[in-house]
């Protein structure tokens, strides 16, 4: 009788399904949900890093953040950083995925190399780039000088000029996210039925016609999802900026995530830091909903 009851519990989808998914739910609640609601609480309080008590202050922290020119610059930088890096990631990812779709000698090795930036710990990779673009000993500058791309007396300060610094952090971020995007897009490309391509070839479609009128429309759901992930990663990233520039020069690469860290953790104003980090949440939520709707609507039969 007991064996019969046991058999029926473990065989019931309605019981087994939730049990199997429970660890993932607990993980999300504990490591994502709890910190999120804690941040919400902190953002409307006057909590400091070592304060035993805190009081409700409404939207004062958000108002205070908006008054700061540093915050306003960080907001603009966040959008610049995200939009430019994601545009590059999608375009370059599509190019790489298209190449990887072909068969050629050394494809496995190339695929491995492409995946390496994603596999390596981000801080380790970024420290490597910090040395590659160092103000004194940059190998990149050395190569540029040796190949006469820049003059003997030119030595770009990759983190010292505002434009170059932003380009550098965007470049490293693209380097880091490109494998992820490539893999997702490659999965999308391989799911396009071969017959569709063959039919296009038979009809005499050239490369660009095929790409623009067949491949990209079929890839739109995948590209939307890849873009959504990339936007969220970029909006919330601080590792690349913290390691490379610490938000400099003169807040030239400061983004909301790094500013929240400096304000809340290093500066001790937990509530202020939480308010800064949550500033983009409403925008990101709307972006996520819209993009997922677009992805769903463009499912191709």
């Amino acid at each position, binding site marked *: 009788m007991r064996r019969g009851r046991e058999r029926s519990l473990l065989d019931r989808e309605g019981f087994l399904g939730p049990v199997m998914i429970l660890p993932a739910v607990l993980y999300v609640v504990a490591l994502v949900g709890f910190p999120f609601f804690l941040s919400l609480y902190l953002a409307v309080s006057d909590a400091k*890093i070592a304060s035993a008590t805190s009081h409700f202050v409404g939207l004062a922290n958000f108002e*205070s953040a908006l008054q700061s020119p540093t915050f306003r610059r960080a907001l603009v930088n966040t959008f610049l950083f995200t939009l430019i890096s994601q545009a590059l990631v999608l375009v370059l990812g599509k190019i790489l995925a298209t190449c990887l779709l072909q068969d050629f000698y050394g494809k496995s090795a190339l695929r491995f190399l492409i995946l390496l930036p994603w596999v390596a710990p981000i801080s380790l990779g970024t420290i490597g780039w910090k040395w590659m673009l160092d*103000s004194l000993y940059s190998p990149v500058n050395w190569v540029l000088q040796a190949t006469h791309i820049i003059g003997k007396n030119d030595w770009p*300060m990759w983190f*010292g000029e505002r434009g170059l610094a932003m380009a550098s952090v965007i470049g490293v971020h693209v380097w880091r996210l490109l494998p992820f995007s490539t893999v997702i897009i490659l999965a999308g490309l391989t799911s396009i039925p071969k017959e569709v391509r063959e039919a296009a070839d038979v009809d005499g479609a050239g490369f660009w016609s095929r790409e623009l009128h067949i491949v990209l429309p079929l890839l739109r759901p995948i590209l939307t999802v890849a873009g959504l992930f990339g936007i969220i990663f970029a909006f919330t990233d601080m590792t690349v900026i913290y390691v490379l520039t*610490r938000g400099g020069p003169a807040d030239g690469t400061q983004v909301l995530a790094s500013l929240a860290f*400096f304000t809340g953790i290093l*500066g001790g104003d937990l509530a202020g830091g939480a308010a800064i980090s949550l500033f983009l949440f409403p925008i990101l939520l709307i972006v996520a909903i819209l993009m997922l709707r677009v992805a769903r609507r463009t499912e191709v039969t």
Partner: protein
Amino acid sequence: MPTPELNRRTFLKGAGVAAVAATGPTIIVKTARAKSDTLKIGQWTHFVPAFDEWFDKKYCPEWGAKNGVKVVVDHISVNDLRARAAAEVGAKKGHDLFGFLDPPPAYEETVIPLNDVVTECESKYGKLVNLAQRATYNPKSKTYYACSDNWVPDPLHWRIDMWGEVGMKPDTWEHVREGSRKIKEKINAPAGFGLAQELDTNMMLRGLLWSFGAQEQDETSTKVMINSKQAVDAVKLMSAIFKESETAEVFTWDPSSNNRFFVSGKGHIIQNAISAIRTAEKQVPDLAKKMALAPPAAGPVRRMGSEHLLHCYVVWKFAENPEMAKKFLVDLVGAYNDAFVASEFYNFPSFTKSVTDLKGKLAADKVDPERYLFLADAERWSAYPGYPGHTTAAIDECFNTFVIPNLFARAAKGEQSAEDSAKQAEAEMKRIFTKWIK
């Protein structure tokens, strides 16, 4: 006998047993672990490796053996100290003693007052130097929230040969400006005053402000004073130095960058703790002979630099061994004759008599007896963040969000005039002060 079939039921049973087997011992071990006689210390990885060698391998084991405790020392990178402290406070678990490199007034509510430790040290080892007292004492709560065992002077490092080319020495800030410009024009060697969002820049620029008679706050530590003619003049001077004799690399620096810049032989002047010249003495001894130290440059009002670092320990309220932590602190201050020498004169004593015959020790330097002698007066020309007030939590946030470095950097880059940059810094500081000062 037939082998058992692997179906969903057996798999789930097996997985469940494996999960309990893996996690069970950790729960059992956790509850069974008793409090051990251990003193846990968290502090930075010293820029002079010889100090850590002495501290970890000689002093702590000997002290531990004498006091019947095991001393465990964890070294944390200078850039990660604050984040680590925040994590320990958040978790209410961590080290017994935690060493900061700049005063942590924001943490006052989570630490044990160390008034008794400071009183005992003063009775045995002389007065606490003024800059350490003002930086670790809260006059409102009458509490020493940290105890400083050492502080680090911030002298100029300059190249005798390069300055000799233009027949000058870096005595005043005007000398620095003129000499640096001439050296850059003549031999294309830049100056190295950082304008980056990092520790060294924070300290050096404060010294420049004070030497011009400017200050971040008033003596009561409640009023923001950064937007003054004196501050604007200091900003204009540094902007001129940047334009005439520096490169954009000074915006990219971290705490180790100016050391590398000077030791590489590229630059003709920096302002830093003596770790830069000590590194040169070891790695490039021939080049080091062309280097000299000097007090910070004098401004129109005074000659003043900041302490490069003010090392101070806190004892967390959640420390497992607070009494032993306090005893360690007192004894460490008492061992400063050895600590000072082990640090190769990097760590200056915060208690005036904890190092006997400071001048004699400086004069007995094995590498260059003349070089370090002037540091005996370093306290006379050194101050601390928040001078002439106290180092408060508001000043702490201004420090850690780089208000002063950005004040100078914006003007040097030409993004704002010195006046507008000072106004922006004032607004930012007032915004921060409002949050902390009730």
